[in-house]
């Protein structure tokens, strides 16, 4: 393969190559398809890309890859619709979007929430794509520095979010997280190989599917609540409010640092193979809450929460492509499918890809950037209709349609009826626990982060044991781990410190 040093003018030319009408048309189609598929609970970005990959083989390589990138970024964004409008994350990346998105929708601000999600997704996607284009090779080395120990601490950092989600009752939140961790242990132990908590049922050998569980935990209680009383599902928006675009842009400008920070977190976490958009958005949410002056509003419909989670999860698209393209290690499952498509197109990944004379990879990356920008008009229009549809549809139609989505969505994951049963049972458990004040989100956090935490800890344990230096392997000799632990300590102590300071101020005021 001929090598070439790419200059700014060359890159500009490749940018315009990506802007051909055919490529633009494919990018629009990809964004729309991805958004619709991502909005349906259970139908993931991976599935959308995998289904459409064969169609791209007949296209020019650059066009095919641009379409795949557009589907991917659209699907991650589309997950926010279901999260905001029906409290069901369309994809695991949108789990944290439910925390403030659904409360906003219930207050009658669903239109603003959808517009905020669109703007944040575009901002995150653009920042992720720019970092991919400009810094891919050096950032890939950062990804390599993350080992099992760092994954363990990242999972613990994600679990600290329980403190934020357990307003007024931290103990119930922690119990819920333990229950989620227990669910994550069901099946064959990845370290040790034992059968754990399967109760002799072969159906549980593969464990509890995360997507099935989260569809059940979030969606079934909403369905049960919908049929419990008459009245509308969401408050209708007054006529003539439009997209509330200027209001949303104003919020974005006021939260610019939150957007940049969350997008950077999303890109960095997206680079880590196996971490993915769910962890990125949870960590960004925790950071946004920790640094906010209005912490008490988080979980009640705080726009900053949506901006943090949606910018982070779309930034993982660009971030995930960094190790995929530079090292050939896919950061997320959809990256693995795209990697396969790249190979079929005859593109070999590696650092030399960025100096290849055909510039194909830059066309692809620019295509990703263009698709992300196209998400703004497409997303606003689709989001507006989705919002109107959900607000205006009578419950008599809404309930069976959502229920049908949950059933086919959970079945589609592995074409397994067992996943559907798991979804329904988890939903009933989630509803029953909700009656007792045990929230769903800590359970989901434990379930999502449990395997990563256990594998990371046990690998550190084994490596540390072999070297007779467990503490060094877990923390003391690992600078990145120490930084993450410092963040954990700050996250946990900051609320206590703030409470103590406000008590002191109040006491000082009362004293005179």
């Amino acid at each position: 393969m001929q090598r070439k040093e790419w200059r700014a003018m060359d890159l500009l030319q490749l940018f315009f190559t990506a802007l051909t009408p055919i490529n633009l048309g494919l990018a629009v189609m990809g964004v729309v398809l991805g958004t619709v598929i991502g909005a349906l609970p259970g139908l993931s970005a991976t599935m959308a890309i995998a289904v459409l990959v064969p169609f791209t083989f007949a296209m020019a390589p650059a066009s095919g890859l641009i379409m795949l990138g557009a589907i991917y970024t659209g699907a991650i964004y589309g997950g926010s619709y279901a999260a905001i409008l029906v409290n069901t994350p369309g994809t695991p990346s949108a789990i944290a979007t439910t925390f403030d998105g659904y409360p906003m929708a219930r207050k009658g601000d669903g239109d603003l929430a959808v517009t905020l999600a669109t703007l944040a997704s575009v901002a995150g996607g653009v920042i992720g794509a720019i970092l991919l284009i400009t810094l891919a090779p050096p950032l890939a080395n950062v990804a390599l520095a993350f080992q099992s120990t760092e994954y363990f601490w990242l999972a613990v950092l994600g679990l600290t979010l329980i403190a934020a989600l357990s307003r007024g009752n931290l103990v119930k939140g922690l119990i819920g997280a333990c229950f989620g961790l227990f669910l994550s242990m069901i099946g064959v132990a990845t370290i040790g190989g034992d059968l754990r908590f399967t109760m002799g049922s072969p159906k549980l050998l593969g464990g509890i599917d995360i997507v099935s569980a989260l569809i059940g935990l979030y969606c079934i209680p909403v369905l049960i609540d919908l049929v419990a009383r008459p009245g509308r599902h969401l408050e209708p928006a007054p006529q003539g409010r439009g997209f509330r675009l200027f209001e949303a842009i104003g919020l974005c400008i006021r939260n610019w640092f939150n957007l940049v920070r969350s997008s950077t977190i999303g890109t960095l976490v997206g680079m880590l193979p196996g971490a993915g958009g769910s962890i990125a958005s949870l960590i960004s949410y925790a950071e946004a809450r920790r640094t906010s002056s209005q912490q008490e509003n988080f979980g009640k419909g705080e726009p900053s929460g949506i901006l943090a989670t949606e910018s982070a999860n779309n930034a993982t698209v660009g971030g995930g492509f960094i190790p995929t393209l530079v090292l050939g290690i896919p950061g997320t499952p959809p990256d693995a499918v795209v990697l396969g498509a790249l190979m079929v197109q005859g593109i070999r990944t590696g650092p030399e890809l960025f100096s290849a004379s055909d510039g194909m990879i830059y066309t692809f990356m620019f295509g990703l950037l263009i698709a992300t920008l196209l998400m703004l008009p497409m997303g606003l229009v689709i989001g507006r209709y989705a919002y109107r549809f959900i607000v205006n549809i009578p419950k008599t139609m809404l309930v069976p349609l959502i229920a049908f989505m949950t059933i086919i969505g959970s079945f589609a994951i592995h074409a397994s009826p067992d996943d559907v049963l798991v979804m329904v049972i988890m939903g009933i458990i989630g509803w029953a626990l909700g009656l007792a004040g045990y929230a769903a989100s800590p359970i989901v956090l434990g379930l999502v982060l449990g395997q990563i935490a256990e594998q990371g800890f046990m690998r550190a344990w084994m490596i540390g044991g072999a070297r007779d230096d467990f503490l060094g392997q877990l923390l003391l000799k690992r600078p990145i781990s120490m930084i993450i632990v410092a963040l954990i300590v700050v996250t946990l102590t900051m609320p206590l410190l703030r409470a103590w300071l406000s008590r002191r101020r109040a006491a000082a005021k009362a004293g005179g």
Partner: protein
Amino acid sequence: MSEHARGGPPNADQKADWPGAIGAIVFAGLGIWIVLQGLAMSPLAAKFPLTVGAVMTGLALVQLALSLAGQAQGDLEAGIPADNHSKASLARQLSLVVVMLGWALLFPWLGMFVTSLAACLMLAMIAQFGPISWTRAAVYLVTLIIAVSAFYQLMTRILNIPMPPSLLF
């Protein structure tokens, strides 16, 4: 110092959180079961279950005490406010649960299309409050048939998801 803080019985504002206490008992039992199961596992596989089980049991006992002392009412972070549950129609809620369970259990035997259509119609009836005109009922029926058919086709024809072999379709 309040009466409760002095160790006395909870006052009127601090009612015992009975649902929370029942949940805590269930979780304490689950935690003990996890620990007992963990004791029979290999050391590598047992480390996490033992830790999680022990922590869950401890936290559940703390929660039980808090709930009985009236210091821990449920407070959900998002979605359904805890107090909403008490104002709900339990009959409709349980009907929905039964339909969803029946749907999940029966579709592998009877077929996805048939069970989905039947379940959707039942759920529509459960979610309908007040009288409904024949015209509107017909519109709902046709809409549901079209929606279920469209998604069934999407699943089987476009996404090529294999349906379980069943008596019907």
